[in-house]
């Protein structure tokens, strides 16, 4: 039996359209002009015990809303959602015992107290017995060297240290499933790598199911075998990561800042690139922010270095940055049928 079963799940929000100005604010006091937003528009999937699933999509895609329904915070508008055979919102307290949650933007630790105190409180809340608690803490200590942080006040931890503690805390009661919502947000590369290792180890230790939402495709590549891409409340792709990997693994975005930039520059760039590499060059160009032009390159078809030297020779380039492909770009490519 699957651990998480979701079928035709939807969630609608009613949002008050605020009127403009002071007069509008007064009118809003008495009459509401509501509109319905479909945050999750009918999704279905099953997750097996022990899986690490990457749940990804651009901002506002409905990721967090789904997580909140799976953890029992939000009640679905319609559809079926079961975790371990039970509906999370109807059995919140019981279900909370088998779940661990990390919201990257928020901590579950006691801000003003030393780290170890939070673990002790959670131990009581989840009724973890001393023996298991000690064993867990030893394991975490081995993994991340947590012991040094025990006497430190949570508020004085760095973001990376805090996140490691938060992840540790979410695994403390040996849950069947852990939801990690943006666990690597705002962290530098080395801390990210550490967190990925920890998540992987914890998954293997007790065969814990992990649902990971992230903006960082590196997280997904490092951890997940399966990936679910969601946008506008609908599932775009659900399956093996290898196919998607080939997609965003090969793409790079070249960010260019061009001197004396005008609208015609963009057009000229496009024309010259087509001239040089033919129509099937696998390059797309877009102006994203002021003065910056994004050139997305499929390295399988055109080497990045060629495009870079071509642009440098033909345009007055001031600054250059090379980025891995962004989440928005992957989603756009999936829409365009890249996964067939």
């Amino acid at each position, binding site marked *: 039996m699957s651990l998480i079963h979701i079928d035709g799940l939807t969630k609608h929000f009613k949002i008050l359209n605020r009127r403009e100005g002071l007069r509008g604010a007064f009118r809003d006091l008495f009459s509401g002009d509501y509109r319905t937003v479909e945050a999750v528009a009918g999704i279905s999937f099953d997750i097996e015990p022990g899986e690490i699933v990457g749940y990804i999509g651009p901002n506002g895609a409905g990721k967090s809303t789904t997580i909140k329904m799976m953890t029992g915070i939000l009640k679905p508008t319609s559809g079926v959602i079961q975790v371990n055979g039970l509906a999370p919102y109807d059995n919140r307290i019981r279900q*909370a015992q088998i779940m661990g949650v990390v919201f990257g933007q928020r901590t579950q630790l*006691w801000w003003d107290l030393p780290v170890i105190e939070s673990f002790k*409180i959670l131990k009581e809340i989840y009724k973890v017995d001393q023996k298991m608690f000690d064993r867990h803490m030893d394991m975490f200590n081995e993994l991340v060297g947590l012991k040094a942080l025990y006497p430190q006040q949570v508020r004085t931890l760095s973001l990376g240290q805090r996140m490691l503690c938060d992840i540790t805390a979410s695994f403390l009661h040996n849950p069947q499933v852990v939801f990690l919502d943006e666990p690597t947000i705002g962290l530098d590369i080395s801390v990210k790598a550490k967190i990925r290792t920890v998540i992987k180890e914890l998954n293997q230790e007790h065969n814990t199911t992990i649902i990971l939402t992230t903006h960082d495709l590196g997280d997904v590549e490092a951890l997940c075998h399966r990936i679910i891409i969601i946008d506008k409340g609908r599932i775009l792709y659900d399956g093996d990561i290898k196919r998607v990997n080939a997609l965003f693994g090969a793409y790079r975005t070249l960010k260019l800042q061009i001197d004396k930039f005008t609208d015609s520059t963009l057009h000229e760039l496009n024309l010259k690139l087509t001239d040089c590499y033919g129509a099937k060059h696998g390059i797309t160009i877009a102006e994203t922010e002021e003065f910056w032009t994004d050139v997305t390159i499929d390295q399988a078809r055109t080497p990045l270095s060629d495009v870079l030297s071509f642009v440098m020779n033909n345009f007055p380039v001031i600054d250059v940055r090379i980025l891995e492909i962004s989440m928005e770009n992957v989603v756009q490519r999936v829409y365009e049928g890249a996964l067939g």
Partner: protein
Amino acid sequence: MRSYFPVARATYMIGLVYRFGFLFGIVGNLVYLGVAYYLWKSIYRYSDVIRGLTFNETFIYVALGSAIFILLKTYADWIIHYEIREGAIAMYLTKPIDYQIYALFANFGALLMNLSAITVPTALVMLFVFKVNFVFGPGLFLFPISLLLAFLISFSIDYFVGLIGFYSESVWGLSITKEIIVTVFSGALIPLQFFPDGIQRVLYWLPFQAIYHTPLMMLTRPNQGLDVFLAMILVQLLWAGLLFWLARLFYNQAIKVLRIAGG
């Protein structure tokens, strides 16, 4: 229940972390006591008994009223409202705990902190500096029970106001209004005996007097019959139960706003 005790312990420890907070609490309260002492001394200059209360009784009443006021000031309404507005409540909803009981224990920890840091020192100062005579009687022994019930009532009112955060972005005005209503109508500022008779009768039917007036009567007039005090405790018990239950109903209603409309 056992799993909530560490929560009370944690808030107590947070109080210890902010050592200067209670230092200022003690100093502030002593200043207030000094002012109250001379104020009521001058009111009592021309008569020994006003509205059936002697100076000694009135001063104990007012001084202890301020001590209980500080004792019960655990800021539950502000904290709960903050947790709702900032979405921190999601962290509690994903844990196997009941939010109302969690909040109760968290505030109980703060209460114990206030008790050891401000109320006990104040009582000692009253005994040794102002040389106030406490009269022994059955009321004195029922006082701790009465105080605990007062805390329950006060907590439920605060919790209720905090929960309005589900509907309104700001509870600032509401919290201040609540504060004023509770302080005046409960007899925390002025003994209820000083109010006109008609208003007094109304106030006895409201829950606020059960927060301050009841425990304070046990200390200022401890020599009344045991049955009088037991009746008072019963009234407190009824209010505590009723308000706790009403707050619970309100929570169940309010949480739907979050769970249906989204956080």
